[in-house]
């Protein structure tokens, strides 16, 4: 088995996780910028975090033979302070040309506020002007449906956004078709207590198809499982899905989307 982990917050994980992911067949890990569990007080805090994502974490991952890529942004949970958000967005040009940076993410909404939406639109515009891929976080639980609709509207309203350059993450049964019908990619996140279980993720593939979808663990400092993707592959085997189908879902699809970034290169694999 081989797979790409397209969404994992490895700065919150221990080195044993790198070892176990590598043993399970992980060939690359991608890390979006996210909320640290507390609000940062200044743009300098984000500067240090972006250095961690673009310089230090790739070195730590490399010790375990794992290529590490990152996405940069100010996340929606810290987007209420629009002045701070503007300062953080102003930092991005200093980092987007770093060799492991894939695009802008995970931007999005959390509680669907006006300020969150302003900051989302600011970062969509930045991504469009700099021809960057976009990775979007959709809100949790009761806020997901509304947030997904608002996010899709914001993306559709920007004249330079290409739907195929956008992955909308954390979809569930009530949002996946909205995303796919908009021509964007849909990410399914496997969490033990929320978002999606392996069985439900496979249900969605069986009912919506395997085009433009990927699977991730989004493992972080909370209740999460860095091996959720390979465990779901085992569940697919139990459901008699073919090895080709599984490989497409957990390896070829993320490879196809991520290869749209000139920075995404894996050893021994030429650009798609």
């Amino acid at each position, binding site marked *: 088995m081989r797979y790409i982990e397209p969404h994992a917050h490895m700065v919150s994980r221990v080195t044993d996780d790198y070892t176990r992911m590598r043993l399970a067949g992980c060939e690359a890990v991608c890390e979006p910028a996210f909320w640290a569990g507390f609000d940062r007080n200044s743009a300098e805090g984000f500067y240090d975090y972006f250095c961690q994502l673009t310089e230090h974490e790739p070195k730590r991952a490399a010790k375990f033979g794992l290529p590490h890529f990152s996405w940069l942004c100010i996340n929606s949970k810290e987007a*209420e302070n629009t002045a701070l958000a503007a300062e953080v967005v102003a930092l991005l040009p200093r980092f987007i040309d770093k060799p492991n940076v894939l695009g802008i993410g995970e931007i999005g909404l959390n509680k669907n*506020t006006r300020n969150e939406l302003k900051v989302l639109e600011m970062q969509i515009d930045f991504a469009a002007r700099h021809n960057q891929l976009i990775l979007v976080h959709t809100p949790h639980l*009761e806020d997901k449906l509304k947030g997904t609709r608002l996010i899709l509207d914001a993306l559709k309203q920007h004249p330079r956004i290409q739907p195929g350059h956008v992955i909308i993450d954390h979809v*569930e049964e*009530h949002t996946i078709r909205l995303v796919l019908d908009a021509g964007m990619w849909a990410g399914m996140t496997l969490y033990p207590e929320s978002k999606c279980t392996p069985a439900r993720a496979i*249900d969605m593939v069986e009912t919506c198809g395997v085009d433009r979808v990927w699977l991730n663990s989004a493992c972080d400092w909370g209740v999460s499982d860095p091996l959720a993707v390979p465990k779901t592959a085992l569940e697919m085997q139990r459901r*008699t899905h073919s090895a080709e189908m599984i490989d497409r879902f957990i390896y070829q699809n993320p490879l196809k989307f991520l290869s749209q970034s000139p920075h995404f290169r894996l050893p021994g694999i030429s650009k798609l």
Partner: protein
Amino acid sequence: MTRQQVLDLYFMDARSKLIDIAAFMDRLERSSGEEDFRMKAFREALSQLGPAGADNARQVLLKFSDPTLEPIAVAPGKGACGAWPG
């Protein structure tokens, strides 16, 4: 997969979860005080289950979701509680 294969793979797991839900509702019944909007949405979602072609998972998720489209002025906090208070 055939229905027999699905039952073989998932029946025991679903049975266990169903009993957990039943026990949760018993626990709630034994406790004191009032329910809130979360349990109202929960009971409505339960009532959706069953009919053929019901699109059950999606319908349950919709029962817990905020159906509006207007961004709110200020976030009441960072977290979500699982059901829209209305």
